[in-house]
C-alpha cells in the first residue's frame, strides 16, 4: 500500500512533474530542429523532460522516506499582502500615487496579527507623502499624484 510519507517531497515532485508536462505541451508548438540546428523548441524540450524525471524521483522519494508534514499555510496573510500589492499595481496609473499608497499600506497592514487600523492610516498618509515627495517629485517618475479623470 502506497502512502505519502513525506508530503513536502511528494507534492514538490508533483509540482515539478506538472511544470515539466506543461513545458513539453506548450513547447510542442515551437520548432524542434535538430541537434546541429536547434530550433526554439529544443532546449525547453530537454528541460521539460528533465523536470518530469526529477519530479518523479522527488515524488517517489516522498512515498519511500518518512519526512516532515507541510507546515500550515496562513492563507489570509498571503492573500491580503499579495492582494494589496496587486491592487496597487492595478490602480496606481489611474488613481495616482497618493491614494494607491494609502490603500497599499493600510491593506497590507491588515495581514498582521498586530493590526491597528488608525495607526496604519497614519502610516499610510505618511508614506504617501514620502512616496510622492521622493519618487514623483524627487526622481520625477512618470506617475500621477492624484486620480486621473477622463482617461
Amino acid at each position, binding site marked *: 500500500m502506497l502512502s505519502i510519507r513525506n508530503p513536502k517531497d511528494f*507534492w514538490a515532485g508533483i509540482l515539478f512533474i506538472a511544470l515539466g508536462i506543461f513545458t513539453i505541451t506548450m513547447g510542442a508548438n515551437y520548432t524542434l530542429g535538430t541537434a546541429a540546428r536547434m530550433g526554439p523548441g529544443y532546449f525547453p524540450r530537454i528541460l521539460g523532460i528533465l523536470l518530469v524525471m526529477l519530479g518523479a524521483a522527488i515524488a517517489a522519494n516522498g512515498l519511500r522516506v518518512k519526512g516532515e508534514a507541510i507546515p500550515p499555510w496562513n492563507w489570509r496573510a498571503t492573500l491580503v499582502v*499579495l492582494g494589496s500589492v*496587486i491592487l496597487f499595481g492595478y490602480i496606481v496609473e489611474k488613481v495616482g500615487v497618493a491614494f494607491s499608497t494609502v490603500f497599499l499600506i493600510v491593506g497590507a497592514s491588515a495581514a498582521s496579527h498586530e493590526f491597528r487600523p488608525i495607526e496604519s492610516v497614519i502610516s499610510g498618509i505618511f508614506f504617501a507623502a514620502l512616496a510622492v515627495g521622493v*519618487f514623483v517629485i524627487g526622481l520625477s517618475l512618470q506617475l500621477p499624484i492624484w486620480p486621473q479623470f477622463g482617461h
Partner: protein
Amino acid sequence: MELISHLVTGFSVALTPLNLLHALIGCLLGTLIGVLPGIGPVATIAMLLPTTYALQPVSALIMLAGIYYGAQYGGSTTAVLLNMPGESSSVVTCLDGHQMARRGQAGAALAIAALGSFFAGTVATMIVAGVAMPLSEIALKFGPAEYFSLMVLGLIGAVVLASGSLIKAIAMIITGLLMGIVGTDVNSGVQRFAFGVPELSDGIGITGVAMGLFGFAEIIINLESKEKRQLVTNKVKGLWLTKEQFQKAWPAVLRGTGLGSILGILPGGGAMLSSFASYTVEKKLSKTPEEFGKGAIAGVAGPESANNAGAQTSFIPLLTLGIPENAVMAMMVGAMTIHNIQPGPQVMTSNPQLFWGLIASMWIGNLMLVILNLPLIGMWIKLLTVPYRLLYPAILLFCSIGVYTVNNTSMDVMMTAFFGFLGVLFVKLGCEPAPLLLGFVLGPMMEENLRRALLLSRGDPTVFLTRPISAFMLAMAVFLILIIALPNIRKTREVAFTEDT
C-alpha cells in the same frame, strides 16, 4: 608591474567625487535596507537595483557593490541585536553575537564584525585583483562546449555545497533555466512561453523574480510566526574592544579571512558557506569550546571575516568567467545586463575602466562601511526598534514602486506578486529559491552555448566529452553528485548544516 598600473586606473575611476558619492550612497542605502529584519542581500539588491538605472554603468556597479556590502553589514547588525538573521550567512553571527549582546557586549560584537570584515575585505580585494587577470586569459580560450560544461559544473557545485535536498535544488535550477528563456528567442524570433502577454516578450525581469521570491515570500512567512522578537539595544555602548577581546579575536579574523577567500571562489561558495565553515573551525581549534554559543568573540570574529572575504572573492568567477556562483552574484549579472554589460572575461579587456574601477571600489566600499557604521550604529538601532507591523507595509510599498519603475508597467508589479506566491509555495514544500535564481540568469547563456557547441560539432553530442577541458568539468560535476550521493558523506553534510543552528 602591470597589476599596479591597472589598480591605479581603478582607483582613478573609483576615487572621482561622483563615484565616491555613489559608493557612499550605496553603502548607506544597503545598510538601511539590510538592517531591516528579514531582508537579505538578494532582496536588498533587488529593491535598490532600480535606483541605479539612470547612472552610468561604472557608477551603477560601484553603487551596487556598495549596496551589497552595506546589506551584508546591516544583516550582521540585525543578527547581533535582534537574533534575527536577515540572510543565511548571518545565521552563524546570531549564535554568539546575540549572546554577547545579551551579556552587554553588543558594542564589542559589532566592532569586531566591522573591523574583521574590513580586514577580510582588504585581503580578499587584493586576491580578486591578482587572480582576475590570469583566470580571464584562460577563460578567453574557452569555446561554447567548455562554457556549457562550466555552467553545468557551476550550477551543480552551487547546489552541492548549499544546504537542503540536492535533487530538489537541481529541479529548482531547471525551473529557473526555463523561466530564463521566457520571451523572444534570439535566433528564431519566436515568442516562447509568453502566453500572448506583450510584457513577457522581453522576458521576465530579474527584479520582479528576486523581489517576489526573496522579499515578498519572506514577509509573508514572517507574518505567520507570532513569536515576539527580542531586541537588545539598551546595552550598546563602548563600540570598542578590550585588549583581551582583541587578542582572542585576531587569530580568528586571520583564519576566517583565509578560509573565506578560498571558499568564496568555489561555486556555491560565497558568504554563507564561508561563515559556517569558519564557525566550525573556530570551535574545533578553541581551547574553550564550551564558550561557543554563549558569547565567544572568536565565534563572531571568524565567521564575520569569513563571510566578507567570501562575499568578495565570489566576484572572481563572475568577473572572469561570467558565471554567477550564488544568488547575490546572479543579481549582479542581472544588474550588469540591464546596463548592457555582458559579464565575462572580455570585460577586463574591452572595458578596463569599469573592471578595475569596480575592484578599487570594493576596497573603498569596505573602508566606508567601517567609517560609516561605527558612528551610525545608533541610527540603525533606532530603525530596529520600529515594530515589524509598521516596517513590512513600507517594504512592500518600496518594492512595488521599485519594480514598477523598471519598465513603467503595472504588469511587473502583478508578476512580482505572483512570484511572491511561488516563493511561499516553495518554502512550504522545502525548496530553496536560490538555485532557481541562478538558473534564471544562466538560462539564455546556457541555451546559446549548447546551440553553438552542437552547431560546431554538427550535432554530435560527444563534443562535450572529447574536448578535454569540457570533459574534465563534466567529470567534476558527476564526481560532486556522487560524493553527495554516498550515504556517509551525506550524513556529515547534513550535520555540518544543522549543527549549532
